[in-house]
């Protein structure tokens, strides 16, 4: 079968340069009118250990890194052993026979071994052993018939800041690998058309950072923690020259409290972390909410509990985010499902935070934060909504009337002044307070008027959730409405689900899918309407206890019929969803409802 897409996997030890080789190929594809999805699997070590990078590219939108691969570049024997069976028929394993042992008997049917003297060829150009990656990549490019000129451009840009010699060495080494492969093994038949259109290729974290910049963020704080760190690094690199203060702090408690201080002062402020750091931020979430201070908090989830699996994708912080901090306050949680949406939702998070004067959580995860994906439309001049922020010159408020920062209003939102505005001095207190900010928690506590104030302020704050719900985009079902099975997922699991749906469809099985991106306040009515006619609901999520499944049940009363939960530390593979769906359809004895030209099930 001539595929219309290609997948390359390159594996070796940490420090082997796997990452940068993978990125060069990803960019070569994204500059050739192909859609790309790439993911780097790695361990929490700097040298040694096993890492692999997978790049998938095709003429249509690519939703996940995929299961099977067309080319494996094995830089060590471990890679050959671990990944040989991932090869598709027609695929090949590229390796240096002097360095890597390959058990050819384990090659899947139709896959081949391509021994190439990578080290020997590389030595002609450089003493640096990493050059053998480039030789191998050249060989893979030959098999894929990928455009060498584009590769040369990418390498030139990638190493542009270094010596011209380095660029030349890489190009020559790749050419030599290309030529060797062409002579000995020829080209594969993928029928892929490489064009000239370039698409932005970025990770979820770059999208979050870019979204923050486009939204007018002026303060970002963080403490290094995988997989959120690269948001801060992106902003540290690009932000200060545009007036953005980027602050690495002593701990995550300082991180969020500084961001809250900046938000109070009137700039658009955000911070980012992973679950462990977010746990430390919990108390301050409520502090931001009771002081009605806008702040955006990114929590990029990774494998837990505790230090858990620091470099593993997992979606297991949902109760932590829903329960962060003591007491009741309006909790707003967005969960972007792909890189494009990471960008869009980061912008939206800043608008929601200021409009509703409240903290907003953007829930990412390691897979979304760290994988590369091409995007089509990045509106770098989005609408910026600042809500009830008063004009800085103080003209928004009559000088005679006392300024009431926490004025009770139908929407729950009160006019917001910031320090520097004359006649608007007020104290933002973490204690319960009156409309003007005075405490009702000490000498007035339990006096009749304080009871009224407490109720009014609590209700005012919580009312915001109704407004937030109104601002959320409505959910939809993807796929045929009358499908016999509905997959429900949230966040980055969307990719594997979409992939599985296409796969199932090609085998004549129709399913539909609800992919939750507005996690809280929960869209109870809409989700209930969408799911009430579902014949079988399958929840797919990356945690042990079924966190979204429980939330769905809590908010709608809907009980899922079955679930696929993964907590192994790997991404959810489309194949696993396909198999799960097939087993359900088989066990329930139901044939797919939707008529399909390709016939029924196997």
């Amino acid at each position, binding site marked *: 079968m001539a595929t219309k897409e290609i997948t390359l996997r390159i594996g070796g030890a940490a420090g082997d340069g796997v990452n940068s080789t993978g990125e060069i190929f990803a960019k070569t594809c994204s500059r050739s009118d192909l859609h790309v999805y790439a993911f780097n699997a790695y361990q929490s070590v700097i040298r040694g250990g096993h890492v692999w990078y997978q790049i998938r590219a095709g003429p249509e939108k690519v939703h996940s890194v995929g299961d099977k691969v067309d080319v494996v570049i094995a830089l060590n024997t471990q890679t050959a052993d671990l990944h040989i069976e991932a090869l598709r028929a027609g695929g090949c394993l590229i390796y240096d026979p002097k360095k890597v042992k390959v058990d050819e008997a384990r090659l899947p049917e139709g896959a081949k071994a391509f021994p190439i003297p990578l080290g020997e060829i590389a030595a002609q150009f450089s003493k640096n052993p990493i050059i053998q990656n480039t030789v191998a990549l050249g060989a893979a490019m030959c098999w894929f018939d990928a455009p060498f000129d584009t590769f040369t451009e990418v390498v030139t840009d990638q190493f542009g800041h270094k010596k011209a010699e380095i660029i030349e060495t890489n190009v020559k080494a790749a050419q030599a690998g290309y030529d060797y492969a062409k002579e000995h093994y020829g080209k594969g038949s993928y029928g892929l058309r490489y064009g000239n259109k370039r698409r932005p290729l970025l990770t979820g974290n770059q999208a979050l950072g870019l979204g923050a910049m486009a939204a007018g963020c002026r303060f970002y704080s963080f403490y290094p923690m995988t997989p959120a760190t690269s948001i801060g690094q992106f902003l540290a690199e690009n932000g200060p020259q545009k007036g953005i203060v980027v602050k690495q702090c002593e701990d995550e408690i300082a*991180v969020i409290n500084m961001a809250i201080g900046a938000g109070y002062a009137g700039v658009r402020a955000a911070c980012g972390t992973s679950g462990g750091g977010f746990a430390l931020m919990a108390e301050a979430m409520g502090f931001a909410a009771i002081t009605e201070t806008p702040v955006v908090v990114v929590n990029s989830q990774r494998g837990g509990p505790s230090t858990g699996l620091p470099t593993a994708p997992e979606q297991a912080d949902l109760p932590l985010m829903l329960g962060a901090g003591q007491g009741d306050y309006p909790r707003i949680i967005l969960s972007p499902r792909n890189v494009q949406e990471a960008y869009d939702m980061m912008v939206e998070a800043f608008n929601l935070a200021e409009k509703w004067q409240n903290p907003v959580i953007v829930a990412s995860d390691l897979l979304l934060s760290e994988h590369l994906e091409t995007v089509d439309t990045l509106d770098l001049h989005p609408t910026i909504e600042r809500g009830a922020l008063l004009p800085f010159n103080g003209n928004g408020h009559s000088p005679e009337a006392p300024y009431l920062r926490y004025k009770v209003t139908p929407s729950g939102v009160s006019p917001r002044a910031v320090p520097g505005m004359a006649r608007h001095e007020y104290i933002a207190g973490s204690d319960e307070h009156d409309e003007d900010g005075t405490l009702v928690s000490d000498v007035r506590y339990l006096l009749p008027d304080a009871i009224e104030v407490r109720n009014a302020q609590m209700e005012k704050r919580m009312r915001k959730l109704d407004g937030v719900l109104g601002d959320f985009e409505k959910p939809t079902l993807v796929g045929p409405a009358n499908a016999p099975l509905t997959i429900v997922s949230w966040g980055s699991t969307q990719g594997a689900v979409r992939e599985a749906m296409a796969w199932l469809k090609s085998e004549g099985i129709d399913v539909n899918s609800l992919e939750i991106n507005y996690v809280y306040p929960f869209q109870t009515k809409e989700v209930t309407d969408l799911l009430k006619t579902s014949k079988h609901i399958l929840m797919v999520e990356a945690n042990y206890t079924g966190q979204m499944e429980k939330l769905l049940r809590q908010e709608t009363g809907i009980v899922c019929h079955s679930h696929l939960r993964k907590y192994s530390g790997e991404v959810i593979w489309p194949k696993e969803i396909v198999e799960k769906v097939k087993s359900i359809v088989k066990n329930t004895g139901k044939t797919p409802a939707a008529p399909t030209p390709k016939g029924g099930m196997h």
Partner: protein
Amino acid sequence: MAATAPQISLTDYKVDTKPTWCPGCGDYAVLTAIQKALSDLQIPPHQVAVVSGIGCSSNLPHFLRAFGVHSLHGRALPVAQGIKLANPDLHVIAVGGDGDGYGIGQGHFIHAMRRNIDITYIVMNNEIYGLTTGQTSPTSLKGMATKSTPNGNIENPVNPVGLALMAGATYVARGFSGDPKNLAELYKNGIAHKGFSLIDTQSPCVTYNKLNTYDYFRGKYVNIQTEGHDHSNFEAAVRRSLEWPTLLSEKIPFGLFYETKDKRTYDEDELAYKVGNPLHGDLALTKDEAKSLLESLM
């Protein structure tokens, strides 16, 4: 142009809200001294942000006219720094108690000082947890009996002045609520100082600390300026910082231990301010900025 700005008086800093402190509490003198320092410096109330944590003394922002945040326990300094970083034009004063700043907030204390960020930190140190009715604090002297150490505290107290000197604060002083005139002077100079100022203030708790009373401090009080201490001499400052509570000498040195104007402040080196105050200016990316960002990702 040059219309004469209206004179700012002490009453401009007053509010109707009455302090909730016990009669005789040292914090009253601190409040008055802050108000006096600000009016002496002619800083308008709306250009001041007073940020506190949690504790008796952390209620202070509610008792004067200014912007402010009554934040979480131990978090006055991060919030204060966030405000200052977002709007470097503001005068930011962090206030709180010894538990707040030297206990739960100790980590932030050290880091704020090494940044030499331009804020003033006033700690109302009473060597006790007052709001929780009398437990040992990080500055409680060894041997002191409290509700949480009924047999006497067996830990050594932290030395805030010594810590501040080591961590890189550029204005380090100890004041006393029983000497309000000097206190206002120390605050005024601390607020005017560019860089991180710490004024550790002995502010007696008349209800729960029967050891470190007004009389206790009056009996041991020495003013280091009167004694001829040179506050530009770092080594001399360190020597004097060790006299109390580390060595528990018969005398407790008060006054300005150290000030330097030679060290650069955080905002002098923050690249983002070259564009201007982050609070002002257009939020949208310019066309060129958008273009170059997008190209860098292609």
